[in-house]
């Protein structure tokens, strides 16, 4: 994995250059793109960092691009910048999860603060992502029956209820339950429930 990078997307090359120079001077690696499309072409989800996005771009505008990324499930934090931001636009992008909305020209501290915040968020996001993918891997290692039992356990059903629901003996349910706890590396029921919530594993909702 490469170091955390600021991806600068602005159609004005001199702005890109200035920002790149400034971030370079404080030791933050940058990459410059003249348009959202150019950025998108070189993107892969192993990259980390944040995006410094001009709100008004040729082609897909910054706001549209933000929506696009969101729809694709890419959680790269975005810092918006514009020469003339109007309130509705600011409200819209902030609501959609933008880190900050900078009005050109901006103070160095504003920028660096936003970048630091974005990196932090990205780190949390990637951590979360990796935890979720670990949990998902564990869930995938279970058998279908074990997943079924897990859904019922996390829904708060007793062994007896699970047994009658699945037409199994209570002993068998206990065995499955043990295997679920082992497979998920869960020390307690509470931990298991938490893991399932994190991975958005759906718990049992009654007989189908």
């Amino acid at each position, binding site marked *: 994995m490469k170091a955390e990078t600021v991806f600068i997307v602005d159609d004005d090359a001199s*702005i890109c250059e*200035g920002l790149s120079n*400034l971030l370079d*001077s404080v030791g933050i690696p940058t990459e410059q793109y003249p348009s959202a499309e150019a950025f998108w072409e070189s993107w892969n989800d192993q990259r980390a960092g944040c995006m410094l996005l001009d709100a008004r771009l040729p082609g897909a505008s910054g706001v549209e691009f933000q929506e696009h990324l969101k729809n694709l499930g890419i959680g790269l934090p975005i810092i918006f910048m514009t*020469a*003339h931001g109007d309130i509705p636009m600011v409200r819209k992008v902030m609501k959609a999860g933008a880190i900050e909305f900078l009005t050109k020209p901006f103070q160095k501290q504003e920028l660096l603060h936003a970048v630091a915040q974005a990196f932090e968020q990205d780190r949390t996001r990637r951590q979360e992502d990796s935890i979720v993918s670990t949990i998902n891997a564990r869930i995938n290692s279970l058998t279908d029956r074990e997943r079924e039992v897990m859904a019922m356990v996390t829904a708060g059903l007793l062994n007896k209820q699970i047994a009658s629901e699945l037409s199994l003996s209570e002993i068998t349910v206990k065995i499955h339950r043990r295997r679920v706890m082992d497979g998920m590396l869960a020390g307690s029921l509470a931990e298991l429930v938490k893991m399932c919530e994190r991975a958005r594993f759906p718990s049992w909702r009654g007989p189908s």
Partner: protein
Amino acid sequence: MEYGIKPFSIATCFVLVALLWTFPLQRVIAYPFVFLFFGAVMGSAWFGGALAGFVAVVQSSLVITYFFIPPVFSITVAKESQSFLAAFILCAIAISIVSSSRKRAESAVRTARDQLEAKVRERTAELEHSNLEIQESERQLRMLTEAIPQQIWRADVSGRIEYCNQHLRDYVGERESSIEGDSFFNILHPEDAVLFRQGWESALVAGGRFEVKVRVRGADRAFRWFLVRSIPQRAEDGAITRWYGIHIDIEEQHKAQQSLVIAQDNLSRLWRTLSMAEMAASIAHELNQPLTAVVTHAYACREWLSTNPANLEKASATAEKIVQESTRASSVVKRVRALFRKEGTERQTVDLNPLIQELARLLRDEAIRRGVGIRVVLDRNLPKIEGDSVQIQQVLLNLATNAMDAMTAVTGSREVTIHSERRGADEVLITVDDVGPGISPEIVSRIFEPFFSTKEQGTGMGLAICRSVVEAHDGRIWVENRNPAGARFRFTLRVTA
């Protein structure tokens, strides 16, 4: 005439009856008594026709000859009785002919009468049938008018409603359920009733159908817009006897149209300020970009210098960037300043007359909406000028819209006049006149100053820009008041050398 056995049997019966009655009578009467046989002939001819009559004549003659004419019981006739028999036969034939022809005539009359009666019956039946058909089609028509989801009425020439369908009743409400007979104009909006009556009366004269958009009062006393379409019905002499009308609900369309008008209004207001606002925004953007670059580079430069040891190479490269970007910013400023100066403008040979005509066309919709007339008086021999046609048109547009704005409160006829004329050897004079309140003396001197405005939403830049443009073209712009009312804006431009 009838043939077959029937005439013979009828004749025989009559003759037999006559014979039977004559026998006893003959006993008391001395002369051969033949009168009853006349009766038999008459009856036979009457009931059996000419043939039966003839048969009765023959039979009677034979019977008389045999029984009553001497010598009796023989068919020979004594010489002295021959004339008597002949007379009898002649009389009998005559009676037979008369009787049978009378009978024929009578039966012909009867047949004719019977036929007539049959015909009358037939006609009556037909009439009843067609009456039913008419009733049925009338019923269907009525159902149709009720089924149409529009309001339909029929009125006499004076506008009294004779019929209206349920939809119209429902719309105007229970209170006026007896709208029939009411004057139609009562359910119209008072303002529209006048218009409607005009349409009605002119249609009476012109004799055609007519359509008007009017507001019709509903049961809730609220008015909705309807398209009322009326068709006259004419008598044979061409006079109008009735009106048929249909109301089509156009409230929604009307609302949509209204909001469109408002949108257009906003648009045109925007359009007038757009060039200025747009210019300002683009200047701001153009300046902001290099300034942002300068600021970020400057921050970077300081960072490069503050590291230990200072990265002089990077700092120097950054300083170079700062110089470049600052130059770029200053060139933007230069360009803006040059925008209204001679060297910045596109100079070409311009024919002002088509320019003015185009402007008048451009403003036409706006002018109609505001109830303003635009009059253009052009000098046909106007020389061409040298300048920037877009900028000159902006000046004209600005002056013309100002003129329209100035007449908002004018109640009489509103008119903007644009003149073009030659002035001296090397100048063209353009005049824009209005009939508004004019310019008060205390502001005449300030009116071309930037940010000076008498309008609530004015930027105060319009006339200032006009002056910049005109002066950049070596011209002059000024304002006068007209007599008795109105303002006159004039500017001059230099004729092409």
